[in-house]
């Protein structure tokens, strides 16, 4: 069977395109059960995007959950590999989360990949490249924002302020809120050089070739230098293979420092008001779950893609074929089969459904087909 691309919605097209993409780079499909033990999510509550998990009791009384997240399940099923083997998997799963807008549970189709094991520069760059190619599969107008948690933690972690204030600082960075950051620094008594570093981190965004020298100029210590080296190597490699114009450095892409450690990124396509791809290096989460290995991965949120299907079908059906009791079923069937060749949509009805829009209205009677209305 050949598939007509125009029949598929953006989300469906993306699923096929992404699967083929990940397989080309040697990623193996990972299929998981719909349910997971609730404990897994309780232990890593802050890692989840929202608080809510749908729970229920299994027949033996065990508390189970409809999975709100895929990454935790993949880590749970991973083994610490010896040597330099990394396991590369991709998935296409429904997750259940509380919608930020309606505050009710929502089913979200999510596709993504995880690379677990000995993560080196190649593996990291490959994952970022696949993130770019994933966005390319969805839309031709796309951008990937790249940041590095290492630089952030090099500046924020040593500060003698409460965890709550550190969270507020991260929040200001996420909001590009320079005035808020200045106020916050003043209220917690952070010294001026720190405040300056934090505000320049907010204003340092754009092309890597312009931003990286500004980051170097912060002199934020060894950890930060290593992080900048990583960003530099990754962005230079991507530039060489033609993705230079698609990658920006932007520290407003932030996340919880207790789970993420290295590069972090978010992808955007024009026409969708929020990020549709999110991922990064989460070695700290691995450690919390008792793994020695490193890990990096990302997820693409496919439910947002229907916003790209702006051009709805103008007609509900191409041909509305009316018939009555007296019609010869075999003849009617033959007429529908002939009309529907070449992909024309034919709806056979005894009366006109309310509000239907059809290109052509036909009537099947004893004398054959009769055109009642023609919209072309």
């Amino acid at each position, binding site marked *: 069977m050949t598939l007509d691309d125009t029949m598929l919605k953006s989300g469906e097209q993306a699923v096929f395109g992404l699967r083929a993409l990940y397989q080309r780079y040697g990623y193996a499909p990972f299929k998981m059960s719909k349910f997971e033990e609730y404990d897994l999510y309780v232990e890593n509550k802050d890692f989840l995007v929202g608080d809510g998990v749908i729970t229920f009791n299994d027949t033996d009384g065990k508390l189970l959950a409809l999975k709100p997240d895929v990454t935790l399940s993949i880590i749970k099923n991973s083994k610490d590999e010896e040597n330099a083997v990394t396991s590369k998997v991709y998935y296409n799963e429904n997750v259940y989360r509380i919608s930020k807008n309606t505050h009710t549970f929502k089913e979200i189709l999510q596709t993504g990949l995880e690379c677990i094991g000995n993560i080196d520069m190649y593996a990291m760059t490959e994952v970022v490249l696949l993130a770019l190619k994933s966005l390319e599969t969805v839309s031709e107008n796309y951008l990937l*924002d790249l940041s590095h948690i290492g630089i952030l933690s090099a500046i924020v972690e040593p500060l003698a302020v409460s965890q709550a204030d550190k969270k507020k600082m991260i929040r200001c960075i996420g909001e590009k*809120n320079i*005035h*808020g950051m200045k106020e916050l620094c003043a209220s917690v008594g952070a010294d001026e050089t720190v405040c300056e570093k934090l505000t320049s981190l907010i204003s340092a965004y754009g092309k890597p070739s312009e931003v990286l020298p500004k980051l170097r100029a912060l002199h934020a210590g060894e950890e930060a230098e290593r992080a900048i080296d990583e960003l530099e190597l990754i962005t230079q490699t991507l530039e060489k293979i033609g993705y230079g114009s698609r990658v920006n450095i932007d520290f407003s892409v932030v996340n919880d420092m207790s789970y993420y450690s290295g590069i972090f990124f978010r992808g955007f396509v024009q026409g*969708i*008001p*929020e*990020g549709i791809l999110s991922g990064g290096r989460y070695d700290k989460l691995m450690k919390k779950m008792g793994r020695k290995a490193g890990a990096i991965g990302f997820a693409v949120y496919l439910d947002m893609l229907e916003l790209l299907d702006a051009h709805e079908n103008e007609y509900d059906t191409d041909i509305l074929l009316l018939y009555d009791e007296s019609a010869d079923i075999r003849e009617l069937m033959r007429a529908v089969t002939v009309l529907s060749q070449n992909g024309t949509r034919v709806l056979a009805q005894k009366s006109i459904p309310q509000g239907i829009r059809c290109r052509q209205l036909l009537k099947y009677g004893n004398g054959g087909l009769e055109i009642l209305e023609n919209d072309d």
Partner: protein
Amino acid sequence: MKTMINIALPKGRLGEKVYGMFEQAGFDCPSIKENNRKLTFENEEKGIRFFWVKPSDVAIYVERGAADLGIAGKDILLEYNPDVYELLDLGIGKCRMAVAAKKTFRDNPAKTLRVATKFTNIAREFYAGKCRDIDIIHLNGSIELAPILGLSDVIVDIVETGKTLLENDLVPIETVVPISARVIANKANFKFKSERIEAIAEGLARACREN
């Protein structure tokens, strides 16, 4: 043709003042001053489109990308917590979120505090920070009435001059957070129109400094 930058302005006095700052920054749209029933106003040459919305709706328009930029009070941002960039503090529309009560009110920490407010999230967070057990009473207007009739012990509301409070024998007892108008931007749209959005934000920052 340039793609338009959509800007949501809050209806009312504050919005008109903010439009003045856009004008000062060189992003004017003369048709907005015509007295008619139009909802959107464009300046094609400058590539901007303004529209008036209810102040509490600005954040929704921006978060969902219908507007690229918007002007919203910090009270709205704190209450609804939208996922947007907060690019600039315009320093106008200044007031404060405050706790107020009857002059005779004495706080008894041994009792649950009854708090009437329109801003339930702000109030809840403020008292959670003090580990104070409260009973939130959500009201949509005439908040000042609540302590007078004994519906609540205190209110959490916006205080500008304190005149309304005074006329009703109420006094502000604590500031929760200072409020002013902020420029917010949709995160995704910012990526694709960053140069132009930055130019507008810079223009507004300049106008702020000049005023």
